[in-house]
């Protein structure tokens, strides 16, 4: 059914349709609306049977999910940013134990400085945790990916993060097609755990494993994700059959056929990118787009196949490997290694910085002319940065950076005393 609906609410409804049995929640913007909506559904018994647990921290949220999943209940939680970091130990543990938990990450920057706006640094920090990560471009896709995620997670007995851009998606009101319960039930079978805590068959889960077997355990987790590379397109195809929509899969290209310049990105920014590309196409530029849906497992082959025929590509990413550059870009380069393709990294939108069509326009044209630095920081205020760098060079006690920048930008009057 088509609804004009807030992204968070849409996702909450999709989750509910998946019949989760245990939901643990701890509030953090911009995830709050999702769990609030679910909480209400459980309270009103619209979603039943389901245990909704208000935990005392994200660490507890993931821990409760670990317990409930290990005991055979379909388990869900959602978080973002600091919350995700607060639960990190348990995030790794859930993957290590092979528990098919589904978690929404309403992507948000990581502090300090504390910042509630969108970028991808939170979930990308969990790149190696063993969780799968699927990125939604739209709220419709967020809804659809959640439904697929439960099936994928339970099929492989591995946890999944469904990542959707904070505020940009979570708080956006859009038309979304919410499937019916019958449709979802027809697609997603009841949870049949690979193993569960049960007095009828007592097993010990979570052994201490030494050097003699640890590598094998880790390899097996890797092998699971390799299997997911096959399973994800399959589930997307099944999804299309059941719901009549293209959603999910590993990657998706746009106007890529004869593109000489390809723009690679994840999440909602793909919308702006496509609009810009449309405009450039109209102006005759041979430019196309590669959207990555499955960040983990990373579809090396599909990425390579999508890029191999272009001449250059730009990875536009909302994340920064400090001291190195791009995060996604590294993987993309790995995918095309040996092809001699020219690749650029563009770091953009950190902490919610607006990514405008105008800026992209400029960026893509420069890329086409191969005039870009290997790593470009989109719309960076060099003036401010240089001033601070200069200050630091002169004075060891140069004061708090964020405060100084605010001052330089004229947003604060109190902070300059360190200058």
């Amino acid at each position: 059914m088509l609804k004009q609906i807030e992204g968070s609410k849409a996702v909450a409804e999709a989750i509910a349709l998946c019949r989760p049995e245990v939901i643990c929640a701890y509030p953090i913007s911009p995830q709050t609306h999702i769990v609030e909506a679910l909480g209400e559904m459980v309270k009103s018994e619209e979603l039943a049977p389901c245990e909704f647990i208000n935990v005392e921290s994200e660490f507890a949220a993931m821990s409760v999910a670990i317990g409930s999943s290990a005991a055979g209940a379909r388990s869900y939680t959602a978080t973002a940013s600091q919350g995700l970091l607060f639960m990190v130990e348990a995030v790794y543990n859930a993957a290590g134990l092979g528990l098919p938990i589904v978690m929404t990450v309403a992507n948000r920057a990581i502090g300090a400085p504390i910042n509630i706006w969108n970028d991808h640094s939170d979930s990308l920090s969990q790149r190696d945790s063993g969780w799968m990560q699927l990125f939604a471009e739209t709220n419709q896709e967020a809804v659809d990916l959640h439904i697929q995620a439960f099936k994928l997670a339970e099929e492989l007995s591995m946890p999944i993060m469904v990542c959707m851009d904070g505020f940009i998606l979570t708080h956006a009101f859009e038309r979304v097609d919410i499937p019916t319960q019958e449709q979802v039930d027809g697609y997603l079978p009841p949870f049949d755990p690979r193993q569960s805590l049960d007095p009828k068959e007592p097993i010990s889960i979570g052994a201490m494993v030494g050097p003699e077997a640890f590598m094998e355990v880790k390899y097996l987790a890797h092998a699971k994700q390799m299997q997911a590379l096959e399973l994800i397109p399959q589930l997307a195809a099944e999804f299309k059959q059941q719901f009549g929509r293209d959603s999910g899969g590993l990657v998706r290209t746009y106007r890529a056929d004869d593109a000489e310049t390809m723009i690679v990105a994840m999440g909602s920014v793909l919308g702006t990118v496509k609009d810009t590309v449309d405009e450039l196409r109209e102006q005759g530029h041979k430019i196309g787009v590669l959207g990555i849906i499955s960040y983990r497992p990373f579809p090396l082959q599909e990425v390579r196949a999508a890029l191999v025929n272009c001449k250059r590509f730009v990875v536009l990413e909302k994340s920064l490997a400090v001291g190195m550059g791009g995060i996604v870009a590294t993987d993309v380069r790995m995918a095309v290694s040996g092809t001699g393709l020219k690749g650029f990294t563009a770091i953009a939108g950190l902490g919610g910085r607006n990514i405008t069509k105008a800026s992209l326009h400029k960026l893509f044209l420069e890329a086409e002319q191969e005039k870009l630095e290997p790593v470009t920081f989109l719309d960076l205020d060099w003036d401010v940065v240089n001033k601070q760098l200069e200050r630091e060079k002169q004075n060891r006690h140069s004061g708090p950076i964020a405060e100084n920048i605010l001052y330089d930008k004229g947003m604060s009057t109190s902070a300059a005393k360190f200058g």
Partner: protein
Amino acid sequence: MSFQPVKFYQTGTYTVGNRLLGPDERSVQSGELRSNSINSGHRACQGCGEALGARYAIDAAMAESNNQLIAVNATGCLEVFSTPYPESSWQLPWIHSLFGNAAAVATGVAAALKVKGKTEVRVVAQGGDGGTTDIGFGCLSGMFERNDDVLYICYDNEAYMNTGVQRSSATPPTARTATTMPVGKEPGNVFGQGKNVPEIAMAHGIPYVATATVADLRDLEYKVRKAMKMHGARYIHIFVPCPLGWGSASHDTIKLARLAKETGTFPVFEAEHGEVTSVLKIRKKQPIEEYLKPQKRFAHLFGKHAHPEMVEHLQAIADRNIRKYGLLDEEKAHG
């Protein structure tokens, strides 16, 4: 008296068993068919009080739940010595997740059982003092406050043993650990305010809180069984001497637990909804030295460079417990 001792001469209910008692009066541990929840072959040190306490407690919980029990375990000695790949000692469904999240994982298990309608299956969480009073404290408090249907058992050996005997918030003042060495002006662990987790548990108003020791099996079993008859958040804090960490003889494990109780240094009591309902009285009061001397972690208090003032201070703490909890019978107190 926290449990009804059998009025019976010879050994009454002091010993594990008693051939003269009726089958329904016997302890779980005396039964040939006790579940031995932790099987032989575990790798705990010789004379480990934690291995013993865990079998006592979990066997009792198994008996009370008709073997419908799931255990969640925090990281620590108990976990490490019971489940090194490829062998497990546990005979019941068991899960280890992390050091600081046992209470929360147990909440999750309980939630799953509830939603699946498996009301007959019960959940215990267990951890060491470090996993309980320090790193797992947040999850523990959350579980208490929500009154989740979990029995949490803390095996208190008064330090982080698994990592080589470092101090925890349950380490007693003056005790030597690898991080509180007996050097300087105030050797050993400091005299702080202490952290009394049973009392903090009581402050949550949860249905049941109890302390116990491996020296009083019948009391321990009674408390576990009682806790298992209840629902909601329950907490049992069991005193388990550690020969390795305390520098005590492996055969003194039970003796030291007994002395901890008899000196008053470890008060044994139970509380319901935040109020103490009974205490296990001291039978033959002993001076604190009797408890301290067999333990190398207190050796610096005696001998050449003795610290009698610190011993006095420890005695004062024990005496305060005796007063506060009424651990001595009136007549004995005056006698």
